[in-house]
């Protein structure tokens, strides 16, 4: 199930919150666990046993670790969980990628499995791994109650598109949390802001990118190529950050505080800064569980460069099983290296240039990210840099001008303060958020373009 749907908003949510709020305190995690399982299994019921096995294996291996002080046994339990979790992720997400590369390299004929990914597998695998590794390190005690643990793994708000919530982020709340009206009010507001980001801005501007794709990247003018790239840049931000906001809002409505995931990343002035403000929980995960364990910056310059290379290749691959994602990750590795060597200081000195630089770099990055087919990718970049004239872009500029303006405005903090002042007035807030719900509902009922972008993640 996805958030931006009539089914979620007007069937799943009302039933879920009625049950959850009505349930006695000690049953709330059980209710949450079962409801989240319904959310996960909807439309993909055959994957239901996978989720149960993920919960069981990680629960058992963490409990096993805790029963012994012997390093070897503890490590064995960790490896069981690691192999199981990444085995699942590898099988569903990377098997076809591996086979097709082997086929191409050695002229084999390995069959393609063409599996749909279990919902949110990249997100819940990372979340579950954080738990098992933390228990292994002794940072946190193993969870005793399998229902509470299951509720953490399959918790529906952040299951499908983040933020990546680590067990240590919410283990206290998992056992004792207070539901209060101000928290719920705040949660509803965040959820509606996220919904509006996704439905009113991301979907609306994203159709420009789809139009350009349909015309064919080989047939568009250079201005239209840039316009389409700008549209995708806004789409991916409002879609992804919208999903995170919806998750954080839903979490607060349930009594959880999830970590922030986006902090106006397009305001950054360097790639280094951008990656501290974009999908923050993913960066934190790779830092904590890949970069530091490999030695981080503590083992000399060469080793640090290798560690960063590993992190960025993996970051790319995490976003999808295709070479363009690896290239996208390595593109950022190279840029971060260049910034580390000399560029960062210069960027700090020039305010206008650094903003321009960042937006240009990030947009071009999204071009690499968006097109998985290398023929189309070549055609698109050919158009971006070939100075091909044409008037096709004028229609799109006219049609999408207001959406562009809104997208550009809301990806900065310009309106943040005035909006907060305005919505301090409760009545004004109710009117504004009510209108957002009304309009979003209209767009969901008559949905023509409402993609789920994370099916590859």
């Amino acid at each position, binding site marked *: 199930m996805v958030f931006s749907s009539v089914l979620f908003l007007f069937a799943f949510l009302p039933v879920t919150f009625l049950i959850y709020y009505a349930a006695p305190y000690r049953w709330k995690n059980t209710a949450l666990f079962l409801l989240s399982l319904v959310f996960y299994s909807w439309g993909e019921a055959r994957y239901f046993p996978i989720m149960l096995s993920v919960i069981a294996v990680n629960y058992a291996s963490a409990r096993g670790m805790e029963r012994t002080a012997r390093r070897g046994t503890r490590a064995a339990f960790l490896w069981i969980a690691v192999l199981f979790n990444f085995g699942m992720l590898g099988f569903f997400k990377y098997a076809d990628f591996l086979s097709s590369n082997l086929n191409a390299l050695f002229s084999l004929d390995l069959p393609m499995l063409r599996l749909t990914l279990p919902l949110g597998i990249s997100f819940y695998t990372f979340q579950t791994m954080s738990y098992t590794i933390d228990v292994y390190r002794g940072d946190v005690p193993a969870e005793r109650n399998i229902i509470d643990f299951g509720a953490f793994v399959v918790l529906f708000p952040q299951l499908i598109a983040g933020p990546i919530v680590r067990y240590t982020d919410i283990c206290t709340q998992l056992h004792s949390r207070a539901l209060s009206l101000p928290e719920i009010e705040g949660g509803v507001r965040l959820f*509606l802001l996220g919904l509006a980001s996704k439905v009113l801005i991301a979907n609306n501007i994203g159709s420009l990118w789809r139009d350009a794709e349909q015309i064919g990247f080989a047939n568009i003018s250079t201005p239209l190529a840039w316009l389409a790239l700008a549209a995708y840049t806004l789409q991916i931000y409002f879609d992804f950050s919208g999903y995170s906001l919806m998750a954080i809002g839903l979490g607060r409505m349930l009594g959880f505080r999830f970590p922030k995931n986006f902090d106006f990343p397009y305001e950054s002035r360097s790639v280094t800064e951008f990656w501290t403000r974009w999908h923050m929980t993913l960066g934190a995960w790779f830092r904590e569980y890949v970069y530091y364990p490999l030695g981080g910056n503590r083992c000399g310059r060469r080793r640090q460069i290798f560690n960063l290379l590993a992190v960025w290749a993996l970051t790319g691959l995490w976003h999808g099983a295709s070479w363009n994602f690896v290239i996208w990750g390595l593109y950022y590795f190279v840029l971060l290296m260049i910034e580390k060597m000399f560029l960062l200081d210069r960027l700090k000195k020039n305010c206008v240039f650094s903003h321009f630089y960042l937006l240009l770099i990030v947009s071009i990055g999204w071009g690499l990210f968006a097109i998985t087919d290398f023929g189309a990718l070549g055609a698109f970049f050919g158009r971006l840099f070939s100075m091909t004239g044409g008037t096709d872009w004028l229609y799109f500029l006219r049609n999408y001008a207001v959406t562009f303006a809104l997208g550009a405005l809301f990806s900065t903090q310009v309106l943040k303060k005035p909006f907060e002042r305005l919505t301090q007035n409760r009545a004004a807030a109710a009117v504004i958020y009510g209108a957002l719900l009304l309009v979003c509902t209209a767009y969901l009922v008559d949905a023509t373009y409402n993609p789920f972008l994370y099916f590859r993640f």
Partner: protein
Amino acid sequence: MQSPTAVLFFAAILLLALLNAVSPDRENSEAENRPLQQSPHFTVSSMLDSSERGFAQKYEKYLSDQFAGRDGWITLKSVCEAAFGKTENNGVAYGKDGHLFGIYRAYDEENYRANVEALAAFAAETPDLAKTALLVPSGYEILRDRVPANLGNADQLSALAQTRRTLEAAGWQTVDPAPVLDGDSYYRTDHHWTTHGAFLAYEAFCESAGVTPVAPDEGLRRESGGFLGTYYNKAKKFDAAADTLVYYDLPVDSVTINGEATDGLYDLAKLATRDQYAMFLHGNNGVTVIENAVGEGSLLVVKDSYANCFVPFLAQNYRTVTVVDLRYLPTGFRALLEGGSFDRLLVLYNFENLASDENFYRLDD
């Protein structure tokens, strides 16, 4: 109230969930002119099916299709799209003077070529039959001054010119209606041409076929207002101006559809529904035979819906007009062709249907 937004939110989603549960389901959407998803049956195997046919997927579509006040929500979206300054909605662009145009930037060129080749091959097999191809461009090619600037739709006129050359080389006569069609030849809210446009093309056809066009008696002219067509159904432009549909109450001796005698050329009951254009020739049917003793000879028409308002004029020239819609005639075209003694075959298609239709192989069946 301490938390009005939260109260409002939960009240709204509960209320709408309840309304959805109690509001009666509709079979069809009059406004969208399509059947709506009905409540799916739950079985274990359908729940495990993750394809479009699965229970979960159908249920999701059912909830959306049967959403309480669906038509109102669709109108609200259309109003918001206008507020966003959009010049299109759901693949339909807003032109000048209330004209709506389908966005048609690319088409299946391979399928288009295959269909043209099927026609050329057909000519090789029927050298003794006189054949005319009348291929009609979409409205945006004719009403250039009313199309939004730089819409970027596909160039149908060049493709049609090329196609006419191919067909002529294969033994077809062709009629290009583009030069005679004028600003009133297409509906504002529907993808079809108007009766006026069809008549202009009919005159061009007559000239090519060597028959004398019969202008309809203006006393037989009938009008039906409030026509909101297929483009409107997609775009739901909240301030769209309705079209007026014109038809001529032309006399014919008999109309037979799929072997059953039918009352007249038109289904007047359709004028009371949303899809008024469906009144012409009672909509699209496999085989329609029109007899009219004032005419001479026998004409076979293979066509799409563009022909439905065109054929009544032909019935004034030909004693028998046999109209075939290949989409509704799976087999039997060959038998029909060889069984009748036709003086001429007319193939009449709109460009977009010629490009998308996958039934031309039925010419051999």
